[in-house]
């Protein structure tokens, strides 16, 4: 190990020089990640065992905050809302972005293909705060665009973000609109990397479009599907901006997500200890889910 590090620092071969350059390029990123994320973990652990009263006084409370959180209704409401949001959002993003990528894949004219790619990708570069504001106006019950459209086509207008039962699905639509582009770009790249010979061979064997999709496209897109699945899982479990701006967690906590709960605990009520304990629960949940997803779907497909 020591020898390897020494070689990396002082080595003069082309391979060692290339490696050195590569590490130097990623060094700022690693330093940032370490300082902002990893180095905070011991401090978060320390905080989670302490209760804070005012800004100057804290007290060691052992595991009581971890236990107390599990007894809190608001924690479970927030957790349920987050999971509900994720369960609706992840398959929607995955399915729709794959569908759009497939449609784009079949477009042969480059300029049209690029135009649609840009069109679908545009909301991804829009900030979630801006998206939330735009959609709040679209969803407005009395003067909003959507209800006006509903009235024109003879459907009953809805109260969308003001309805405890519709608020999460409404937020999911906003989220899908924003996240669709990223998934679509990943899938388009994946589709373009699949060699055409597989399809030609399948066609000669008499496979129709559906069979080609099920037995060639889907298995070979497995790494991209995994990537989008993990990215979306992490993103939706940490969703904050949309409910914070569009609903502030309302109505009646119906869209209060776990990160919003964590934020309010820390910064509205000045309870950094309790908020740290919540963040550790969230960390554990994301870690477990990601590992499970990775274990289940990591098998490589080779033809």
């Amino acid at each position: 190990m020591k020898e390897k590090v020494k070689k990396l620092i002082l080595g003069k071969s082309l391979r060692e020089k290339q490696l050195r350059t590569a590490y130097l390029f990623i060094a700022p990123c690693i330093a940032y990640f370490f300082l902002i994320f990893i180095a905070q973990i011991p401090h978060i652990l320390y905080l989670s065992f302490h209760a804070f009263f005012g800004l100057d006084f804290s007290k060691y409370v052992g595991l009581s905050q971890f236990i107390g959180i599990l007894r809190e209704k608001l924690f479970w409401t927030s957790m349920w809302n987050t999971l509900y949001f994720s369960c609706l959002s992840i398959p929607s993003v995955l399915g729709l972005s794959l569908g759009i990528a497939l449609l784009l894949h079949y477009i042969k004219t480059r300029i049209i293909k690029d135009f649609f790619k840009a069109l679908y990708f545009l909301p991804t570069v829009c900030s979630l705060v801006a998206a939330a504001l735009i959609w709040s106006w679209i969803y407005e019950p009395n003067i909003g665009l959507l209800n006006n459209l509903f009235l024109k086509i003879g459907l009953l207008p809805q109260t969308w973000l003001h309805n405890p039962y519709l608020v999460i699905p409404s937020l999911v639509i906003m989220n899908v609109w924003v996240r669709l582009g990223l998934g679509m770009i990943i899938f388009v790249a994946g589709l373009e990397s699949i060699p055409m010979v597989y399809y030609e061979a399948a066609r000669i064997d008499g496979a129709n479009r559906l069979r080609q999709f099920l037995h060639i496209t889907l298995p070979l897109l497995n790494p991209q599907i995994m990537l989008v699945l993990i990215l979306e899982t992490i993103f939706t479990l940490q969703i904050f901006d949309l409910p914070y701006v569009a609903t502030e967690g309302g109505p009646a906590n119906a869209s209060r997500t776990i990160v919003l709960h964590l934020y309010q605990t820390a910064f509205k009520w000045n309870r950094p200890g309790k908020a740290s304990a919540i963040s550790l629960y969230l960390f554990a949940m994301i870690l477990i889910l990601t590992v499970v997803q990775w274990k289940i779907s990591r098998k490589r497909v080779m033809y």
Partner: protein
Amino acid sequence: MGKKIRQVLMVFSLVLLIVSYPGGVLAEKVINYWNFVSEYEAAYKDYYTKVFSEEFQKLHPDFRLNAVTIPYEGSDAKYIAAFSARINAPDMFVGKVPYFAGGLGVADPAPADLQRIWGEVMVEKIQDFVKYEGKFYGWPLETDLGMTLFYNVDIFKQAGLDPENPPTTLTELLEYAKKPTKYGPTGVTQAGFALRYSGNPRGIADKWLPFLHAFGGRLYGPQGKKASGYLDAPAAIESLQFYGDLVNKYKVSSVTIGKPMDAFSRGRAAMLYRESWVVGWLDQNAPDINYRVAPLCKQERYPGISLLFTQSNMVYKFSPYKDVVWDWMRFITSKKHDVNIAKILGTLPVFAENFKKMMRGRPDEEAVKVILENPSSPYYEDPFINEIAFRIGEAVLEVLFNKKTAEEALKDAAPDVDALLARKELIK
């Protein structure tokens, strides 16, 4: 030669760096003032900055005032982050006294001379709101005597209601609210009475307070130790049930009509409860609205001042310029500036003497007189009132959105509030 020049330049740069770093010889002494109350933004920012630079700087020429308006919704987080880090924390700030003096412990009690002077000159009914454990910590932005009933005269006339005789009891309020309410495909399009149902739950609790007090209820006991037995008492349950029924049973109000102030200023609500600053706000933002102001409605009793908080200017306990900031507070809390600010904003001044003069002829004059003549409702000084109000606001929302009955919501909330009330013992 080149080396020598480089050395001289390096030494020069180093000296420049040392003298100009914050607190260094060349550093400008800036008093940072944070305010998040958007209604007052321009007046406080512009007026304070002008007075500071034109008048106060003659006494303290080294200092400059940096007035910053921070967005209301993110203000809690910004305050906590700044005060926790003790870096770039405001030297003077706007907030609620019990929370900043007791809950966070960052507000400085007023010096002895101001304790005496403020006690003599400030409108008596609001003094408790800017005190914590008997000491003055802040100077209120205005004399906030809680809410009164604002009603739209034109909507009243169209609905066949007599604007000369507004409702005086909550039962009458309900009857009055039925007539002007209009309905569309999404429900209520013009509310008889607009109530708060969105935003921070603590504001929602605040808006329910006059109803609670009118039914003879209170949030927690007079000793500040227990909510059980008070928040879940029959009076509180009845008042919250009435509040929820306005939306769900009688449908004279709505949880889709928008913010009550917006609805009222656009002529989409006949009545609402709001504070006296709204007089100035309506004059500036909705001059076409023909409105009048009446006292709050009674039921079991007259609700009186039903306020959870009032916003005040406070001084940061650990400010390096604390003495200068208190000097500035002495300067700006004079009778002259009090009148000027009240004129700019259309609010009620803080000096009792100014208050008496400026109250005359205002649309809310009679309603304010009734408030002053009647005893005040309970005042809730708990240092964690933010969190307590948040929990109670959630219970109100559960009823407004028909998720629970008033009894269920308040019986669930009371033990949580008990636990929050117990927290203050730990900071002593």
